[in-house]
């Protein structure tokens, strides 16, 4: 299997508080990896370290075998390959739906307006938001915003999509529409790294599940292994707490 992202001995401190401790893990091409764990265990921080929104305190990340922590490596260049979906959507407030999906393509990827619009519409169509291209973010519901945010990330044609609890800020009735879009993407063979509390989604869609607790990876394996035959006590305790 072709490795896309390799995290090696990653550690992260906020001041003296060590949030991530010697993390090692890999994302392979075409794989859906779900990260689960209780709140405060460092899942978001891990994801943010992967696309360098947080500075690493130690360790390194290889992208397709290339060390991105080398001085010669350009952060913006690297981030082009990663799509990020935030818990709080973070749509650009000054752009309407269509131009949220176009501005990055034009400014970062230097695509023409026509190309950008074509691509944006394709993905807005895919997430079922093509009807709303002239709406402003403030005029959309949470689920709609998150679908636009996904389309925005996809419009950059990234190699890997990162999701940080994309449904946690949504009203329950909107969770389904977003999860459905994510399942579609998984079926399309997209490489995805997903932090989630949706155990059903992880079970159904993930190739691999990573369980984190207190800044370390406690256990990882197939959904079958993690959900049905967890080895570690902490994993069992977490699953018992969340599934009940």
């Amino acid at each position, binding site marked *: 299997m072709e490795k896309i992202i390799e995290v090696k001995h990653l550690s992260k401190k906020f001041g003296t508080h060590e949030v991530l401790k010697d993390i090692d893990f890999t994302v392979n091409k075409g794989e859906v990896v779900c990260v689960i764990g209780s709140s405060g265990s460092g899942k978001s921080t891990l994801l943010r370290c992967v696309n360098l*929104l947080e500075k690493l305190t130690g360790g390194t990340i290889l992208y397709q075998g290339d060390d991105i922590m080398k001085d010669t490596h350009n952060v*913006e260049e690297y981030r082009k390959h990663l799509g*990020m979906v935030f818990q709080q959507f973070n749509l650009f407030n000054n752009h309407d739906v269509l131009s949220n999906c176009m501005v990055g393509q034009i*400014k970062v990827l230097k695509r023409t307006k026509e190309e950008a619009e074509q691509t944006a519409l394709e993905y807005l169509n*895919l997430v079922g938001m093509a*009807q709303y291209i002239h709406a402003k973010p403030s*005029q959309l519901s949470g689920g709609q915003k998150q679908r636009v945010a996904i389309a925005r990330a996809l419009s950059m*044609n990234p190699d890997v999509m990162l999701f940080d609890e994309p449904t946690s800020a949504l009203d329950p009735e909107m969770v389904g529409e977003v999860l459905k879009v994510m399942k579609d993407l998984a079926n399309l063979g997209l490489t995805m790294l997903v932090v989630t509390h949706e155990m059903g989604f992880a079970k159904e869609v993930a190739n691999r599940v990573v369980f984190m607790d207190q800044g370390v990876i406690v256990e990882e394996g197939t959904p079958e292994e993690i959900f049905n035959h967890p080895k570690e006590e902490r994993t069992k305790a977490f699953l018992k707490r969340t599934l009940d």
Partner: protein
Amino acid sequence: MGKKKEGVFDVRKKIGYLFSMFAVIVVLISGCGGAGDSKDDTFVVGMEAGYAPFNWTQSTDANGAVKIDGSADYAGGYDVALAQKVADGLGKKLVIVKTEWDGLIPALTSGKIDAVMAGMSPTDERRQSIDFSENYYKSHLVLVVKKGGAYDQATSLQDFSGAKITAQLNTFHYSVIDQMPGVVKETAMDNFSSMRVALQSGVIDGYISELPEGITAEAANNSFKMIELEDGFQTAEEDTDTAVGLVKNSALKADVNQILAEISEEERADLMEAAIKNQPAETDTEDDADSGTVIDAKDSSLSFAWIVKIVSENGPMFLRGAGVTLLIALVGTIIGTLIGLLIGVIRTIPKPDSKVKRTLLKIINSLLSIYIEIFRGTPMIVQAMVIYYGSALAFGVDMNRLFAAIFIVSINTGAYMSEIVRGGILSIDKGQFEAAHAIGMNHLQTMKNVVLPQVMRNILPATGNEFVINIKDTSVLNVISVTELYFQTKSVAGNNFRYFESFFVACVIYFIMTFTVTRILRAIEKRLDGPENYVVIQNQMQVQAVENTVKREED
């Protein structure tokens, strides 16, 4: 697809227009700045153009009046007539520069003018910084008081005991008040216009003046009376002389003296008589017949008819003043906002990793802080003096006055706006920055495409506020003789002696400008916010086959 495309592209276009408009204005301004007269064939004379009958401002070239440099108005009076003779004698073209009294000597020493001919006396004090020609007019001191008041029968200095007396700042008129026993010496005033207002309103009982001004005041306002004392003030010869001010060791001095010597005493007296007769307030009273409303110009009571008359006679002057005010305020606000945006972006650059860059950024940031603190911490009127005259003295730069005005307003606004912008940037949700960074934008792209448009929308009310403040505050630029509305109004009032009415007109014009600007900005805000509802695209879009998407994915 996409018949209606809104969003970034539209805003970009709007900003584009703004920039091109701005560029045009800059070109225009630098155009007038560049049109510097070659100093050799002109004789540039500075005067207040507000000290009739020596010098005044009028709107036509009647009676040999000469165009005021950088303005559409004309200067007339005894000084102008004499200046014309000197210029002719020198074989040069006369250029009149209108300058505040206190700005005359700085203007001369900084080389902005060649000579001062402003009814100025060659005192020892002044001789320390400039040279003077021979005398070109001799007068004596008088007092101007209220007719029918307690002092209108005075004949000696003693008779003024208990009176509140003042005189013009930085003149010997003010120091001779000490020779009057028992008077209350009021604070000196900037110009005769103010003293006439003060006398009219009863703030003072009288002011000290010289013969020509006294005759003028009496003629212009029938509630004034000029008192000539039999046993008057002790004055030095030089004090009642009037001479041409020149820079030290001026090459012109010998020629000027030569030309003045050829003008006889009678000719001088004739010219002064003509000046007293021609000064604006007097002629105004004679041609009321065709203005429809018959007004007694000498009537000192307030009247609506006067306002109508002032507007109909000086309309273009007010409008030009308002135009200049608006131009300075608009361009100053735009440039200031751009400065503010630029500084705001620089001051929010995240700490770079490299040590060299970090130090550099720190230095730049401290320089910017110094700039902001200095310009926020000093009055604009003081900055105007320092920059306009300082640049000439220190670097020999002869700044165009309009350019200087716009420059001063711009950097002032910039200092305020940069703090407003910084606050605006800090108030933008961190998620906006992160989302922009996450799709690969750098700091500049993030600022330009995501953050600043939101900041601009948020600071638009503050910017509008700045614009309104600038419209009002440009009035302080009259100290460097920019022909903005306040300066023009002062000229109008200086000619007609109707202070309340003239400034009332200015007041209305200022209010119309600020009110209109406020409304326009509201409308712009509304437009920027876009419609409250969006249109759902009804006709189903051609649905792309999911397979297509997959293919792109795999490319």
